[in-house]
């Protein structure tokens, strides 16, 4: 499928519930064939936005376009979208096969053709031979698959997934994540996933829209979101980030120099230069894994600071150190992969910390 064609376009979508402003001018495009996630805390409007695509929610102003067609006035049962609901919404009085074939009821297929289509859909989700089972006897993961098969059998242009993995346990969830990615590549349909789980969004998506209070805060691919979040809020929501107050010392030729306590002067990339002017008080942020606790004899190619270890959290494969860099007030978190034979440091130990200026992100 052509990557660059637009499947869904939101044009300044506004939604009010009475006085409550649920969607505040959403403008975004979702490409055909991509795995797109709407990520945000509960109440940020991500589910509402998804439901405006499905046609379950009207919009107060603006436009929702699907494949170039304005969806205003098109009811949910006439839209080229299908949804996998959070509760799966498996019809409890029907068998698995009847559930999966429900949407084909009106297609006027012969009994054989219908059975063939249902069988193929069940096979696609790994439930071959489950057709005659009672739907209510299924496990959570199986319900999930039935819901997927039921939605995909109609070959929609867009598959909408409303937090479908949130009810599963951790192991099942991770397994389904992988299967969903595989399925999406296989069918090539545009998938739009609503989730509050940032890890899930990072793992599965081609692109992610991070939403807060009815607005898209940032829309980018997972790597950009993680490495170059455009606000402290996005940075905090996606993974963990340390923040330090800093001051812009100089700004010249697309380069920017800031000074942060304990870190000294840092020159940052040109791409971030637009974010601040000389003399501004700013915040620099960095991910826990971009810092390294140096052990005796190790040298760093990057810059170094001295620090005291305040807290040690041991995870088996990882150790989290909360360290206080000399000259700073608040401890920062460093995550280190544990290496066999290397000791885990203790609280109170003095250590050197290495960090790369390129990993720092500047926030206003």
């Amino acid at each position, binding site marked *: 499928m052509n990557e660059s064609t637009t499947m869904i376009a939101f044009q300044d979508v506004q939604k009010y519930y009475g006085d409550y402003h649920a969607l505040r001018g959403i403008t975004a495009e979702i490409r055909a064939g991509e795995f797109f996630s709407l990520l945000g805390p509960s109440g940020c409007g991500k589910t509402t936005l998804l439901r405006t695509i*499905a046609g*379950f929610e009207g919009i107060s102003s603006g436009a929702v376009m699907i494949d170039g067609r304005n969806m205003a006035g098109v009811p949910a049962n006439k839209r080229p979208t299908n949804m996998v609901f959070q509760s799966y*919404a498996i*019809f*409890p009085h029907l068998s698995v096969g009847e559930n999966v074939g429900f949407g084909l009821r009106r297609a006027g297929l012969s009994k054989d053709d219908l059975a063939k289509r249902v069988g193929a859909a069940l096979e696609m989700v790994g439930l071959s031979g489950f057709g005659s089972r009672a739907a209510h006897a299924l496990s959570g993961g199986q319900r999930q698959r039935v819901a997927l098969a039921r939605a995909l059998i109609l070959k929609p242009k867009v598959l909408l997934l409303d937090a479908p993995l949130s009810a599963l346990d951790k192991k099942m969830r991770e397994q389904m994540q992988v299967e969903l990615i595989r399925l999406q590549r296989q069918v090539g349909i545009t998938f739009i996933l609503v989730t509050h789980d940032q890890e899930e969004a990072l793992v599965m998506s081609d692109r992610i829209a991070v939403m807060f209070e009815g607005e898209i805060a940032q829309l980018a691919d997972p790597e950009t979101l993680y490495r170059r979040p455009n606000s402290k809020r996005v940075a905090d929501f996606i993974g963990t980030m340390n923040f330090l107050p800093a001051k812009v010392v100089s700004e010249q030729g697309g380069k920017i120099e800031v000074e942060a306590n304990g870190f000294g002067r840092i020159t940052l990339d040109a791409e971030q230069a637009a974010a601040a002017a000389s003399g501004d008080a700013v915040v620099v942020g960095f991910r826990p894994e971009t810092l390294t606790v140096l052990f005796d004899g190790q040298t760093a190619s990057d810059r170094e600071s001295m620090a005291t270890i305040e807290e040690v959290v041991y995870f088996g494969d990882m150790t989290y150190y909360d360290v206080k860099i000399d000259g700073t007030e608040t401890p920062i978190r460093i995550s280190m992969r544990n290496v066999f034979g290397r000791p885990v440091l203790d609280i109170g130990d003095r250590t050197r910390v290495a960090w790369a200026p390129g990993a720092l992100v500047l926030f206003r």
Partner: protein
Amino acid sequence: MKGGWFKVYTLVYLLFLYAPIIILPMFAFNDATVIAFPLTGFSIRWFEAMLVQPTLGRAVANSLEIAVTSAILSTIFGVFVARASTRYRFPMKTGLMGLIMLPLVLPEIIVAVSLLVVLLGLGINLSKFTVILGHVLICTPFTIAILSSAFQSLDQSLEEAAYDLGESAASTFRLIILPLVMPGIISSLLISFTISLDEFIIAFFLAGTEPTLPVYIFSQFRFPQAVPVIMALGTVLVCLSIVLLTIAEYFRRRGIAKSGGKDTGGFL
């Protein structure tokens, strides 16, 4: 003796509850006209006498007609109200629901007298129809209560899923909602049927020349020789009630099993 007094209490309780009902068939099959011990001998003549009473037949027919009609009408109203109250938000909802449920606690005699006054004032002749009006009025709160819980336990995304898969609102109702609330509809029909069948006060006031079974039974107590026949009739009614309840329970459990729900409540 652990729990000894509790056992005694339970026994006395059950005895108090069921002894009068056990007495019914005893005297129904007793040979004597007078309702007193000792029993004189086995006979089925009261059942035979019951079968040849034309007024009794009429009363039974009237009662069935009224009960079936009232059950169907009040269940239909109940479906409308339950659907509206669980699915939609509208102004004054709490107040309106309270008003609709009020006949549940209003003294029936007040309802009966006011209905009589209104109907006579409107110049409507008393008939089976007026009894049905009264019975629908008192049955509907019960059907709403039963059906609301059926509609409430329905996951709204089931409807949305059917709609999303291309069905219209009407076919969604027929294919998804109706089958899933069917156990509720059946118990609503049975409860309102039972309420209407043994309702006395409204039927007594509004029946005119078409007495229902309870009204007929009450009127027969004026004649001592008719009492054993009433006993026989009572025996038949008790048996029918048990059968009806068993059927209702069967459908309720099957409905729950079919949709994979957990069995909470019910009669048996």
